[in-house]
């Protein structure tokens, strides 16, 4: 098998990509991929060659990744906005042959500090486009047959500091998700038009937005840089049916200066990357008349574990377990907890990765011999099998024997109008073992926050220390980086 096959089997005239005024049909896309394969082959790219892609959500990303996969190589997508040192650190783990640098990453082009030879992807893509246009008739994409377990993508998963981890995802890992998405109701089809606003360098944007849509023969409307008003105008103009975003994007869509019926064509709206606040869900429903569902997944699961699709929406839940996925909530010893109790989420599915590149210790720490992935996330099921996320297991603060989940405390304090950000951690305490510490950005006073905590939190959950900071460490996806403050 080969994941690059996702572009085959669709009508040549069917539109695959829309990037600005550039409308690319499946026929043209196949021609461009084939032309780029000839170029890449000349640069030594073949079976098992790793190629890094440093570009935004553009046609070049799609063409280059499919070209590399088809040749039997492995693609390592990297965030083009990363500082050079971070890029170099991640590249160093996988040691790719080349780094193809596109428009959004052009600052890195030719920079020796990247540590990997860089190639101008803009030029390669434009050459491929010209070659396709000049070609007489359709061209076949070269598709090397790969073992289903052969690596297709190397996904870097590290945050802002520390050692980089690279998750290895196989052709089968990713392709299985497309199959599973075809089984939920409504399935993704060739009639779907999907807004490609989540980064393709992230597993959700890559596999659920980009590759699953191509596999179904649908159309992806791309936006290289996120612009809330512009993207909603695109939704209306292109008749987008599937809209996905992270919570900060949904917040900006909610505030966008567009008519309230701008999302009339959308039949499935989803939020990922971080928990979607209930108030935001309600406000979006109120304004646009659509219900934004959540899902749960990790890079290591390709990524879908649960999805709010095919069942009535429960706004604070991350949905139900996708068919073909096994999920158990377990205690420290690995025994499943009682239904209705919290436990660490462990997952087994055809999407579960085979490990971290060159990192057996970390792999063995999260993956059992029989294929269960220990996610480090704490969850709870309701009676009907909807999953709800609680927090990260290692972030739990234990006060007098009671579990305090920092997210719950953060969700209370952030409600104060003069608080712009909160990160809650624990610190050692002589009498209670640990105690709750709130790191706050904003102008609210300690007394105000204490009053808010007293109103909404049990006594043991209330912070005993408030630390006021100018700025909090927040990752690119909007998640607070608690470990930086521990």
């Amino acid at each position, binding site marked *: 098998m080969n994941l690059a096959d996702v572009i085959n089997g669709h009508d040549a005239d069917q539109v695959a990509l829309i990037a600005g005024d550039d409308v690319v049909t499946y026929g043209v896309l196949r021609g461009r991929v084939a032309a780029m394969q000839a170029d890449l082959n000349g640069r030594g790219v073949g079976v*098992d060659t790793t190629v890094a892609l440093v570009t935004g959500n553009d046609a070049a990303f799609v063409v280059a990744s499919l070209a590399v996969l088809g040749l039997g190589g492995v693609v390592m997508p990297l965030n083009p906005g990363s500082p050079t040192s971070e890029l170099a650190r991640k590249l160093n783990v996988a040691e790719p042959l080349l780094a193809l640098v596109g428009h959004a990453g052009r600052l890195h082009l030719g920079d020796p500090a990247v540590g990997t030879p860089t190639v101008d992807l803009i030029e390669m893509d434009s050459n491929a486009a010209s070659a396709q246009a000049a070609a007489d008739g359709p061209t076949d994409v070269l598709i090397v047959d790969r073992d289903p377990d052969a690596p297709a993508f190397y996904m870097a998963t590290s945050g802002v500091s520390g050692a980089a*981890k690279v998750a290895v995802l196989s052709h089968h890992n990713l392709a299985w998700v497309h199959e599973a998405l075809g089984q939920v109701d409504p399935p993704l089809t060739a009639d779907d038009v999907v807004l490609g606003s989540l980064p393709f360098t992230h597993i959700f944007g890559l596999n659920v937005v980009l590759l699953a849509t191509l596999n179904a023969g649908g159309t992806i409307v791309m936006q290289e840089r996120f612009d809330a008003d512009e993207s909603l105008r695109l939704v209306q103009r292109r008749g987008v049916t599937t809209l996905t975003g992270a919570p900060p994007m949904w917040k900006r869509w909610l505030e966008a200066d567009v008519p309230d019926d701008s999302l009339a064509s959308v039949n499935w709206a989803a939020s990922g990357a971080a928990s979607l606040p209930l108030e935001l869900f309600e406000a979006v429903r109120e304004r646009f008349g659509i219900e934004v569902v959540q899902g749960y997944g990790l890079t290591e699961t390709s990524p879908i574990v649960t999805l709010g699709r095919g069942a009535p929406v429960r706004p604070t839940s991350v949905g139900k*377990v996708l068919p073909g996925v096994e999920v158990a909530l377990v205690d420290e010893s*690995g025994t499943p907890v009682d239904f209705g109790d919290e436990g660490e989420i462990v997952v087994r599915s055809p999407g579960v990765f085979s490990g971290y590149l060159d*990192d057996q210790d970390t792999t063995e720490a999260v993956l059992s011999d029989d294929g269960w992935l220990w996610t480090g996330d704490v969850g709870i099921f*309701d009676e009907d099998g909807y999953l709800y996320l609680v927090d990260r297991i290692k972030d739990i603060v234990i006060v007098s024997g009671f579990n305090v989940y920092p997210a719950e405390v953060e969700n209370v304090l952030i409600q104060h109008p003069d608080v712009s950000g909160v990160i809650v951690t624990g610190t050692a305490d002589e009498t209670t073992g640990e105690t709750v510490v709130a790191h706050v950005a904003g102008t609210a006073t300690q007394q105000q926050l204490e009053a808010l905590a007293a109103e909404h939190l049990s006594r043991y959950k209330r912070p005993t220390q408030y630390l006021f900071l100018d700025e909090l460490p927040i990752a690119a996806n909007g998640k607070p980086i608690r470990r930086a403050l521990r």
Partner: protein
Amino acid sequence: MGGSASFSFELAPELPGADRFSKYLTAAFRTMATKLWDFTVEGRENIPLEGPGIITPNHLSFCDSVFVPSALPRRVWAIGKGEYMDSWKTKHIFPAMGMIPVDRTGGDAAKAALDTAAKVLDQGHLFMIYPEGTRSRSGDLHKGRTGAARLAIRCNAPIIPTGHVGTVEVQPPDSVVMKPRKAVTVRFGAPMWAHEFGDPEDPRTLRRFTDAVMFEIAELSGQKYVDTYAGKKTETPDEPTPAPEQTSVTPRRPSVVGAHGGVGTRPTRPSMRASASSDDDETTVGVPRGRKVPATAGNAASDS
């Protein structure tokens, strides 16, 4: 204030113990509690004088079921084993004390117990349930089952956290007699309402509410809290696991969806900090470089 303070014998014709015999027996127990023991009740004003309420005491001794009801200003009902009705020794006394027998042999005993409890509350009475599910052998306060919280949501009733001290000295485990003249204190905390703990449809609310109740019980009883269920093997490794003596109102089944077979063994975790989420960096890159496939069996095929 002792147990002999004002008491109302509520008429509840549909529930056990509505007869004259029960009324006299209840009074006798209450008098006995104050005469034979140094009995103190605190926070009695926290018990609503009318309407439903769920009394949730810690559970250390068989005689908790005597002292806690005797401390209340109203009658209280609880669920007990159906087998008590088979013995002449208990079949009159226990219902008189407010026990509602529920057959535990059926397939859906938890549902039957929950429905029975809901009936008591829906009629505006007090209902008592031990949130730990069984007696704590270690003396610590154990993790609470979510049944009381479920009932509170279903019946829109407050939970009154209850902590007591001294009952183990009166009747230690496995003792059949209650030793007189010991000191027993029962304390009632302020009523707690489910809606203050979040969306009742969200399963996290049940746990949040239950933990908050357990925290208040710990404060009232002075016990140390441990986040494991009572009766689990971890509690007292030397003793056999005691069977729960209260019919649970919480359905118990493993939290597994879509799985066929067990979860298997926990992976080796060289560092407890290591985990799979992408926001985690606290890992080491410890394996020698060179091979560009992960060092796991599943990927060996890609070398071809």
